[in-house]
């Protein structure tokens, strides 16, 4: 508002005069003028999503004062293409499928387009200012390096891997994300900012809102006095009772630093911020329990003094959200019978998903009085259900939908913005928008559950396991969203993978006065895998058995029972089995690997190999529902699914599944998705269900439509339905041909209930070199065997694997949210929280097992989150092989590695 001035600027070749504010950055100036290809990923100059050319030079537009653009030329990703077609960088990104969610792509393209040949030869340095969280950078590097190859040979696309719907829109910077779809149909948008708690535990004694209302433009202040009494969970599952009802929209008790306390809605972000600053809030600070040990202490303050039965909290007085104590067989006898028992305690850290599109939502009332919410979510239908319950509305009075979503990784399986904007929009009758800052994500959005995992495993001399005992202590933070489910999942497939007659699990999930944890790629399995797969590695070494061979002896095979605990549901079957192939691939690939001469010749480097395996159920338990509608409209196919697209690629696979049933190419299927106005119900895309479950519903819908088309053709022609085939634009019988357009409007539905479930497998192998004097780790070889059933789109599925491996290397080596003594996040920005850059990640050699799943769509299985799971353990196993030191805590940073190698106890 302040210091408004006109800024003449030429954007993508068009001269215009924009109005900027004194402290405004160029990114906002451009976005407000409709140049929405310029993304906001971190707002702090760290991620590069906002990169533009200013006067021909690449800059991070979030750091450029808007007034400095006056009289200059700005080129955005949307301006790269010329009249003659795509810029060659855009074409290369298309050819190499160098994007998944696509949110980083505009900034990546602008940066890539500005590189000279020398920079293209040193991409680790050139791209250190660009974060891609989805791809692991491999295809991006391929795309950029292809620019220096002679263009005589045109790029040939794998015919099995058609491009994603909307791929060209992504590279043109035209794909709309949550806040890109402008303008709001209900008029000018008001902006919300949140006030967050400075205390880990406190009672809100009083909020004086008068100062805020004195600020010009402030329309509404929401406090706990405005919040419905109903308690709920931000976590979204098919059955909301899976999570404790422990959260109030705004509460008079704050339970972690960063919890939202109040919301201010104003005409502008600036006024809302000023209103927040003017709120006078009185807290009564209460004692806080910041660690699981403190929370379990006898005199610990209760994080939630709530009724156990009503809130579905196992033991509120003891801060226990959920616990599991279960035994199959006789573990004590199993350990007594073992020739070797290995055990260890492992710790995994607090992590941020780092999806590049921050959480945002905009809510408005439409002309029919219906609440509309557009948000960045993996679960529009479950969020609709939550709003219906929270505000006591009829289901048809609420619509939740999303545009393309900029990454999720489980972090958007929550209702974190929609509740509060909906309340404001309903109160004001005007559109209200809330966009969380990147900083807010570190303390105001769920992280990965930090866990302490003790694993104890016994084996006979011949390598047969006799007993497995797992003891998990999971820190869910101040709210129990996903806490119980993550713990149950963490203790299920991780030990179900191994044949062993005696298994025992002790799992406890505790509340602490820290930012809450939630769903994160792998949903707990990565944490327990880190402990179990290292313990198995110790056993194999102790017994003198090759680690691959040791797993071959013990892994489940078709015909075996998959046992973990009595909690496990029995709808999981071997719809296919490719674990044997994955193990063989990793073994042979590592055997082929070589050590560079400069490392082999230098005694400072210690070289070693390690492997780890993982199994995952193909879908969440207790039902996961998808609905698909396949329509023929004026000769064109329209597929409607509930699944959101956030880089998971399910839009592509669903289009491919429909196209292969209907006998057309995938680009002939137009897709409508992720909108509660379109379908009755869809559980959403989490637990890697976009292909496995939505795909099954799509296949059934397409088959039903094909059947209806044959019936229609039969009725019209008198030729039996079985005689008709679908051939592109027409139905063909031996004697006749009917154009699709002549069939009229037809539609059919398909559903999938997500049961029975199958299992998918992942095996990872590393060859690493550890530099003893500095603690540096160099990954010499990274190989991954994945059993995804029949792979529907190999290029895209490989991207999921590479991206999952990259994110897991971040978990293993770099990333950690650090809390200070008072429970506040110390490093709430990407400059202090290191998400892997291109320079940090090796290429992955990906192998797909040759299997066909009898339960999945077209033989396919899930393959989104699971590639993550075995990676940290495989890396730690390789580092142990190299150095003789066992690393039991992530992240394994250079300083901690160095200390372990030079410390007194030789352990980390």
């Amino acid at each position, binding site marked *: 508002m302040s210091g408004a001035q006109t800024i003449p600027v030429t954007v993508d070749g068009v001269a215009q005069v924009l109005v900027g504010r004194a402290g405004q950055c160029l990114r906002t100036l451009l976005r407000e003028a409709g140049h929405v290809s310029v993304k906001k990923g971190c707002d702090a100059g*760290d991620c590069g999503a906002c990169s533009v050319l200013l006067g021909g030079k690449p800059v991070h537009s979030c750091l450029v004062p808007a007034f400095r653009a006056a009289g200059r030329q700005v080129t955005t990703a949307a301006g790269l293409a010329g009249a003659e077609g795509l810029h060659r960088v855009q074409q290369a990104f298309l050819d190499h499928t160098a994007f998944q969610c696509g949110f980083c792509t505009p900034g990546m393209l602008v940066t890539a387009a500005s590189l000279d040949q020398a920079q293209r030869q040193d991409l680790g340095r050139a791209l250190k200012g660009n974060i891609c969280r989805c791809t692991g950078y491999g295809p991006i590097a391929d795309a950029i390096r292809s620019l220096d190859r002679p263009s005589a040979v045109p790029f040939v696309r794998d015919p099995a891997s058609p491009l994603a719907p909307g791929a060209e829109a992504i590279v043109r910077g035209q794909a709309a994300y949550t806040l890109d779809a402008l303008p709001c149909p209900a008029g000018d948008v008001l902006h919300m900012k949140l006030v967050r708690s400075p205390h880990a535990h406190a009672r809100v004694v009083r909020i004086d809102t008068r100062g805020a209302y004195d600020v010009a433009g402030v329309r509404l202040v929401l406090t706990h006095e405005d919040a419905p009494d109903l308690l709920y969970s931000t976590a979204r599952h098919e059955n909301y009772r899976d999570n404790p009802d422990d959260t109030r929209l705004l509460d008079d008790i704050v339970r972690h630093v960063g919890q939202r306390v109040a919301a201010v809605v104003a005409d502008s972000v600036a006024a809302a911020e000023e209103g927040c600053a003017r709120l006078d809030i009185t807290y009564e600070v209460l004692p806080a329990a910041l660690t699981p040990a403190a929370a379990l202490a006898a005199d610990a303050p209760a994080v939630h003094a709530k009724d156990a039965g009503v809130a579905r909290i196992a033991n509120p007085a003891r801060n226990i959200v959920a616990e599991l104590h279960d035994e199959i067989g006789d573990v004590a006898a199993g350990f007594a019978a073992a020739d070797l028992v290995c055990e260890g305690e492992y710790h995994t850290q607090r992590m941020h998903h780092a999806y590049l599109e921050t959480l945002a939502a905009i809510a408005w009332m439409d002309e029919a009085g219906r609440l509309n919410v557009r948000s960045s979510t993996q679960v529009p239908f479950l969020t609709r259900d939550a709003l219906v319950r929270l505000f006591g509305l009829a289901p048809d009075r609420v619509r939740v939908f999303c545009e393309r979503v900029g990454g999720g990784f489980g972090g958007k399986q929550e209702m974190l913005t929609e509740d509060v904007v909906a309340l404001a929009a309903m109160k004001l009758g005007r559109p209200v928008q809330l966009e969380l800052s990147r900083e807010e994500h570190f303390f105001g959005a769920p992280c990965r559950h930090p866990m302490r995992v003790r694993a104890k495993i016994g084996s006979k001399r011949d390598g047969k396991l006799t007993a497995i005992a797992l003891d998990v202590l999971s820190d869910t933070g101040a709210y129990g969203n996903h806490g119980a489910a993550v713990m149950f999942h963490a203790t299920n497939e991780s030990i179900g993978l191994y044949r062993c007659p005696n298994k025992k699990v002790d799992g406890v999930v505790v509340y602490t006065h820290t930012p809450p944890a939630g769903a994160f790629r792998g949903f707990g399995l990565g944490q327990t895998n880190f402990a179990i797969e290292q313990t198995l590695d110790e056993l194999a070494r102790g017994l003198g058995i090759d680690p691959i061979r040791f797993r071959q002896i013990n892994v489940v095979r078709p015909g075996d029972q998959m046992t973990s605990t009595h909690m496990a549901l029995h709808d999981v079957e071997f719809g296919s089995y490719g674990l044997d192939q994955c193990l063989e691939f990793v073994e042979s690939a590592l055997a082929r690997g070589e050590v560079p001469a400069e490392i082999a010749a230098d005694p400072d480097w210690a070289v070693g190999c390690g492997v780890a395996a993982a199994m995952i159920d193909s879908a969440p338990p207790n039902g996961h529902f998808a609905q698909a509608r396949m329509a023929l409209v004026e000769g064109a196919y329209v597929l409607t699914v509930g699944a959101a697209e956030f880089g998971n690629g399910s839009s592509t696979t669903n289009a491919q599944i429909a196209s292969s049933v209907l006998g057309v190419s995938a680009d002939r299927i137009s897709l409508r998705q992720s909108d509660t106005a379109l379908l009755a119900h869809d559980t959403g895309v989490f637990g890697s269900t976009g292909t496995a479950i939505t795909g099954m519903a799509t296949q059934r819908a397409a088959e039903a439509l094909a059947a209806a088309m044959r019936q229609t053709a039969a009725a019209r022609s008198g030729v039996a339905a079985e005689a008709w085939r679908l051939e592109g634009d027409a139905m063909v019988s031996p004697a006749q041909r009917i154009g699709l357009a002549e069939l009229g409007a037809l539609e059919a539905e398909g559903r999938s209930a997500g049961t029975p479930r199958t299992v998918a497998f992942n095996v990872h192998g590393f060859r690493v070199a550890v530099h003893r004097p500095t603690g540096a780790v160099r990954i010499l070889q990274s190989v991954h065997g994945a059993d995804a059933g029949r792979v529907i789109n190999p290029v895209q599925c490989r991207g999921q694997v590479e991206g999952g491996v990259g994110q897991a290397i971040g978990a293993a080596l770099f990333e950690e949210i650090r809390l200070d003594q008072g429970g506040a996040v110390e490093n709430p920005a990407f400059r202090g929280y290191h998400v892997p850059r291109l320079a940090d990640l090796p290429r992955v050699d990906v192998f797909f097992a040759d299997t066909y799943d009898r339960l999945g769509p077209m033989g396919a299985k899930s393959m989104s989150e699971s590639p993550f799971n075995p990676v940290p353990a495989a890396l730690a196993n390789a580092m142990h092989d190299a150095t003789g030191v066992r690393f039991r805590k992530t992240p394994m940073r250079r300083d901690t590695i160095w200390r372990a190698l030079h410390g007194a106890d030789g352990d980390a």
Partner: protein
Amino acid sequence: MDLNAVEGVVRPGCRAELPARQDGDAFLAGGTWVFSEPQPHLRRLIDLAALGWPAIETHVNGISIAATCTLAELEAMAANAAFPAAALIQQCCRALWGSFKIWNMATVGGNLCLALPAAPMAALAVALDGVCTVWRADGTDESVPARNFILGPGKTCLAPGDVLRRVAIGREALEGRFAFRQVSLTEEGRSAALVIGRSVGGGVKLTITAATRRPVQCGFTTPPDTERVVRDIDRTVDAAGGWFDDCHGAPDWRRHMTHRLAGEICRELAAR
């Protein structure tokens, strides 16, 4: 990010037009830090770029680098320069955590005034025996040796209203022989230890940054053995507030890395 509390920008054309200091003022150079964090206390930006200082001036006695000289301008100058320290200048530019895109905006003066332990321009200015010219708020000028400019993390010798005008580097320094080492927790990451050595007579002068709370220097008149390197560095760093501790590296590791890099530098300079 948008600095929504900022109400105005002053663009002075000359020193006389610098406004009288008010609460909520901030000098704006490249903006790469000011715009990277919330600044709710700021009301006014004073745009130093408007002063139009030439980025780099060359004299017979050396060069003068304007505080508003961008890293891109500095690097480009070094890429075409013949003096031996040019390589060191390029190495220090590359040690910036920000990418080449940030070089297009970030300034030498901004990097010094921010006074982060990892500031590579501080390492460069100190290693080259740079002399900072400070425009004091009262209108006087003051010369401050670069090694005395930074007092601690985020702390400089500047008082409110003071402006860093330039860093002058003498010809002798530009003609010096240097060795450079840097380490971080990640490839291309933020410096956890950055050590520069300069041949001085038969000995060596070490400049240590990133691992320490402020730049420190350690001189040896003869090539030191490992034991002496460790002892003298530890003593000097202890006197300067000890080893730095933040999320970019543990202090014990930074200390060890500094010793290691210093040893490598001494050997490299001795071998030439």
